[in-house]
């Protein structure tokens, strides 16, 4: 695959373009909404599926939560394909590309002009399809092992992550529009919520450090600092954390409810000795709003040019998220809070990873601004 500014589109022509009128302002909204709908379907399917396996159990390829998962990636993939084809047709008709619709156009295979956000989202959806086929083969060989951290499952989850990153880029490209700002906050919240399950790939890592909490702190800090690095004014990181909180609250109610309703509908019993904890929402850090607010304070000074503050803020945030996760787990699952000595290695890992996450996150935020050249 080759990538660059699409043929026939010079850097100058692709550069700043002012949105005028309601028609231009809402251009790109339907496709972006379709992509966001796909992302939401995937999140709903995953939180439901995880709860299903925990509280009920039996698995087939065509459970209702699975259908939500497949539908989510299918909708996201079709939306991305439609956006790429429309942009390519527009380019061939000699129309200027509008970066508000998915971001800068990228030439793909010297044929297509793909808005960068939709390109990333579409690649994730296509990858999901391939890993879905591999997952089916895997289950045929190993059985329907309901574990989240099997190789094909991690491949599927990473593919969805790519789609969600693309969704954030699509809305960030339209950040000058109200719907772009709302969509950026929502898609960042969905990405943060989804990230919590991907880190379960580290469940089998032994040693004094809780690798799942440490990895979670890395991802959360990357997202929070990306948000403050992207936004020119304070508020986006806190808004992201609030969006995650809303997703957590809704999921806390929805996933057990949907699981029980579905089990009743298909005549399966709830397992004996279930804890009754909404599994995926319980993974989401409950104190992220406080951490995000702290990072916002650092970001105010960082915007004035202090290059080290994002990393310092990231280190602080990483230690807080990693440490509090151990406390949150104890509280949610009803066991004793681990002593400080047991939490310390994970906090230290969180600080180190957070330092790195703060550094790259700030830069990712600045890179995200460039998705829309008019905003750069």
């Amino acid at each position, binding site marked *: 695959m080759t*990538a660059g500014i699409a043929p026939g589109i010079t850097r100058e022509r692709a550069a700043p373009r002012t949105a005028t009128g309601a028609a231009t302002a809402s251009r790109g909204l339907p496709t972006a909404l379709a992509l966001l709908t796909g992302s939401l379907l995937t999140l709903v399917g995953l939180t439901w599926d995880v709860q299903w396996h925990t509280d*009920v*159990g*039996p*698995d*087939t390829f*065509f*459970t*209702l939560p699975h*259908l939500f998962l497949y539908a989510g990636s299918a909708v996201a993939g079709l939306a991305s394909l439609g956006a790429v084809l429309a942009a390519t047709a527009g380019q061939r008709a000699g129309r200027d590309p509008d970066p508000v619709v998915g971001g800068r156009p990228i030439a793909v295979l010297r044929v297509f002009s793909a808005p960068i956000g939709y390109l*990333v989202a579409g*690649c*994730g959806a296509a*990858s999901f399809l391939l*890993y879905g086929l*591999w997952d089916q083969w*895997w289950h045929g*060989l*190993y*059985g*329907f*092992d*309901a574990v989240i951290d099997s*190789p*094909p499952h*991690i*491949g599927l989850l*990473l*593919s969805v*992550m*790519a789609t969600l*990153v693309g969704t954030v880029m699509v809305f960030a490209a339209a950040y000058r529009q109200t719907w772009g700002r709302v969509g950026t906050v929502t898609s960042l919240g969905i990405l943060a919520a989804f990230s919590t399950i991907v880190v379960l790939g580290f469940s089998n890592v032994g040693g004094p450090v809780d690798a799942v909490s440490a990895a979670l702190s890395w991802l959360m800090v990357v997202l929070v600092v990306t948000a403050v690095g992207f936004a020119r004014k304070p508020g986006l990181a806190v808004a992201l954390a609030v969006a995650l909180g809303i997703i957590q609250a809704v999921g806390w109610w929805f996933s057990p409810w949907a699981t029980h309703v579905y089990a009743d*509908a*298909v005549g*399966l*019993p709830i*397992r*004996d*000795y279930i804890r009754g904890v909404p599994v995926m929402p319980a993974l989401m850090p409950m104190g992220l709003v406080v951490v995000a607010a702290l990072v916002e304070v650092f970001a105010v000074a960082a915007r004035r040019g202090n290059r080290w503050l994002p990393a310092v803020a990231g280190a602080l945030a990483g230690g807080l998220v990693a440490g509090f996760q151990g406390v949150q787990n104890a509280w949610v699952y009803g066991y004793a809070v681990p002593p400080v000595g047991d939490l310390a290695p994970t906090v230290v890992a969180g600080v180190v990873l957070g330092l790195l996450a703060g550094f790259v996150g700030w*830069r*990712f935020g*600045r*890179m995200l*601004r*460039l998705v829309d050249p008019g905003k*750069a």
Partner: protein
Amino acid sequence: MRRVLTVLTAVLGLVLATAPLAQAYEPVNVVHTERVQIGPYALDVGFSAWPVRAMQSLDWTFAPVGGIADKSGTLSMTAPDQGKEARQRPMARHPRKLEVWGLDIKSLDSPGNWTIRFRVDGPQGPGEGALTSLNVLDQPGPPMALSWSLSTLPLVGLVAFLAVAWRRTRLVAQ
């Protein structure tokens, strides 16, 4: 537009209506049993696949003679290289065979001789016993290193994309 909506509604309706039919959860099919003496209680351990292979999931049933109604118990599954006994968990009814205890779609991670230890309490008092030397064969399929390498390709792609974007924007993004 109306036609598209009609078609979408019809497809969604069909999917929802046929979802319960499409599931058709398979019954538990025990193909091999081992009898274990747990103090005063005899217990049949059933396997839906035999021999057991590492990472290959199967249904397990634990059926004490006389039924489970007046009994409770725990089990632990200890790996070959594990020094101390694994965590005990309460015996729960098998979700698709409610008259016995069991584990659904459960696999063992590694090959070798596993030990399943049972503790049962009932009308004749508590008892303890174990199925020792449960020989688990090597895992089928490709080596895990290869499987994990394939699975992390989306991550590699995402990192490569970010690295290229980082490099191309280094002058304007700082």
